[in-house]
């Protein structure tokens, strides 16, 4: 146990002190802070006046068709600062006003020869506004309809019956209720996959480095291979978990400090971020990390040259990608049987189950089964990985083939 603590402590210190680790972590944190500040940076560049974000719209109603009702648009919070002109204003005059930044856009209400009306919407450049905004069209139509209705001399009840204010709701036939923004969940799933994958990859790289630097022979006479594999895996996992917590923490704080709360709530339902979800995500991170890290320990111990790591690790990478995509694509239909399978299948469950929990569709039995399957898988991988590591670490030849690995596993050396 003392040896295990020593290996863990050395691994943590060795990893956390590396310049490459410190610099890459700092760069990620700075990028996160910058990323959450993009709206503020954009605002700073565009200018920070009170009306920023509002469009100055000139509506030319020379025939006074709307009888002064157009000013009410300003109270509707549609993002328009409306000025109404009841006199004739030519296209050239409007062009001059747009060029001088007096207005952003304009609308000219014209009567055609047949008595109907045409509304021209004038913008500086159609690449920015390709079509007449729908909300504005609806508002103009409603204003005109209400104006005409008011002229019919109807009672308030009759007027109210013309605007029924139907309440629309949506319901589903399936029993399980899914909540949460699927796109955000998919994004978080990608983050979790990369966190697990890259932390686990470090284990392989660390073992091959020890073999390359020929320190292995000294190391195996100092402690047992089991302690080395477990100590290294736990040590790198702790550093990885601290790094992920740091990144997620900075991201959450940045989101809270720098983002508009309305924008944040529209993307991420913070009420779903419960301590239970956080604990379960950490549990799945740890278990997923252990499963993949031990597989990488196995492949890392079969090579002794840095240039062979990539090819030796390919089978594990393929397994991880299959697991990730199984989870990712079935998440589009989270109540499907395939997604339920992905949440229990050990190569995909770490990337899938936390999000089923987040969506509120994972039953307790499902969670227990998923964790049990993952733990049993980890124990089997650990047993195989430690045995192969013990027998293969002193092999300094060429990269071992699958046949060699099987032979090494059966070797009675340890």
């Amino acid at each position, binding site marked *: 146990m003392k040896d295990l603590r*020593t*290996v863990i402590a050395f691994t943590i*210190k*060795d990893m956390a002190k590396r310049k490459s680790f410190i610099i890459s972590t700092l760069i990620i944190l700075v990028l996160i802070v910058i990323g959450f500040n993009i709206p503020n940076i954009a605002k700073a560049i565009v200018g920070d006046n009170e009306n920023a974000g509002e469009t100055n719209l000139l509506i030319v109603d020379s025939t006074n068709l709307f009888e002064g009702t157009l000013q009410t648009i300003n109270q509707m919070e549609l993002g328009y600062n409306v000025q109404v002109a009841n006199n004739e204003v030519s296209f050239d005059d409007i062009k001059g006003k747009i060029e001088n930044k007096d207005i952003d856009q304009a609308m000219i209400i014209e009567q055609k020869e047949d008595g109907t009306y045409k509304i021209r919407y004038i913008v500086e450049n159609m690449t920015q506004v390709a079509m007449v905004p729908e909300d504005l069209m609806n508002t103009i139509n409603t204003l005109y309809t209400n104006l005409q209705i008011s002229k019919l001399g109807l009672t308030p009840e009759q007027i109210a019956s013309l605007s029924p204010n139907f309440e629309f709701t949506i319901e589903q036939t399936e029993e399980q209720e899914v909540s949460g923004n699927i796109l955000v969940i998919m994004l978080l799933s990608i983050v979790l996959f990369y966190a697990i994958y890259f932390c686990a990859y470090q284990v392989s790289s660390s073992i091959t480095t020890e073999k390359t630097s020929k320190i*292995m022979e000294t190391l195996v006479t100092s*402690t047992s291979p089991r302690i080395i594999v477990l100590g290294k895996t736990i040590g790198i996992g702790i550093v990885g978990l601290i790094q992920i917590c740091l990144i997620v923490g900075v991201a959450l704080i940045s989101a809270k400090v720098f983002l508009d709360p309305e924008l944040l709530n529209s993307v991420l339902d913070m009420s779903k971020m419960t301590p239970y979800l956080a604990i379960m995500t950490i549990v799945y991170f740890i278990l997923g990390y252990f499963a993949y890290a031990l597989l990488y320990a196995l492949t890392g111990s079969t090579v002794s040259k840095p240039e062979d790591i990539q090819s030796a690790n390919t089978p594990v990478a393929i397994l991880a990608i299959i697991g990730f995509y199984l989870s990712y694509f079935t998440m589009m239909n989270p109540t499907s049987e395939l997604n339920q399978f992905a949440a229990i299948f050990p190569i995909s469950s770490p990337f899938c189950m936390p999000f089923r929990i987040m969506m509120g569709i994972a039953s307790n039995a499902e969670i227990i089964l998923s964790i049990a399957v993952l733990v049993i898988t980890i124990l089997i991988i650990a047993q195989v990985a430690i045995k192969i590591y013990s027998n293969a670490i002193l092999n300094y030849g060429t990269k071992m083939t699958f046949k060699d690995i099987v032979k090494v596993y059966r070797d*009675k050396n*340890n």
Partner: protein
Amino acid sequence: MGLKLENVSKKFVGKQAVDNISFEVDKPGVFGLLGTNGAGKTTTIRMLLGIIKKDTGEITWNGKKVERKSVNFGYLPEERGVYPKTKIYDQLMYFAKLKGMSQKEADMAIKKWAKVLKVEEYLPMLAEKLSKGNQQKIQFMTAIIHDPELIVLDEPFSGLDPVNSEILKNVIIDLVKEGKYIIMSSHQMASIEEFCTDILILNKGKTVLQGNLKEIKEGYKANRLELSTNKNIDEWIKEFNMEIEFSKNNEYSIKIDAEEKAHQLLKKLVTNHIEVDKFEIKKPTLNDIFIEKVGE
């Protein structure tokens, strides 16, 4: 007591790496384990350190079976290795702790040995900044830091300059004085002759010679005459049917099959008023014995 290997064998896929070897190191001193490349030295060392399991036989230390868990020997492997991106002090502390030392004990031992091996200034440096020779001294420190009773040194002098070789030799002499058991594997026969009391020569996994080095050498007849004269004596040497191994500036190394012949040659030279500065009848060196036993 001490280290005892009895009928130890190890077979790898298709190859008998070590074939039924036995030896005993029963008193403090340096034991020489010799052999050509691939003779089975490293496999023997790995078995006695408990890194790999033997197929047959028994290995005991002070009467107890040697197992990986129970072994706490010191080991300087032939494959030199350090953590390149880690400070020297940190890696020495790491290995010292793995070998059961406390932080305080380890710190004291690191400082003591760094002073003896003249590497104090390198302790705060990354290992990759050190020369190969200094890295080797650091690895030697790793082998002895925990004050083990038995130390295995595989090619301890390879790659060291004469100054550092001398430092290491003095440390080994001191360790023997302290009562340590040392097993030394080396291709440098001069080093083995200098330190070892007992030797074992392996060839293709089998023991071809073993015993006390002095006794082994005494068992061999003298086979070389070293002469230094004031003039060329090639003709007289040929007259006695002797073979010149090497000659330069009237210094000769001559193969002999009997000491008597050498004395007769000396008599002839003196009779002919040749000045003889050096006359030495030599027994085979360990190098000669090694080549005789394993050379094909």
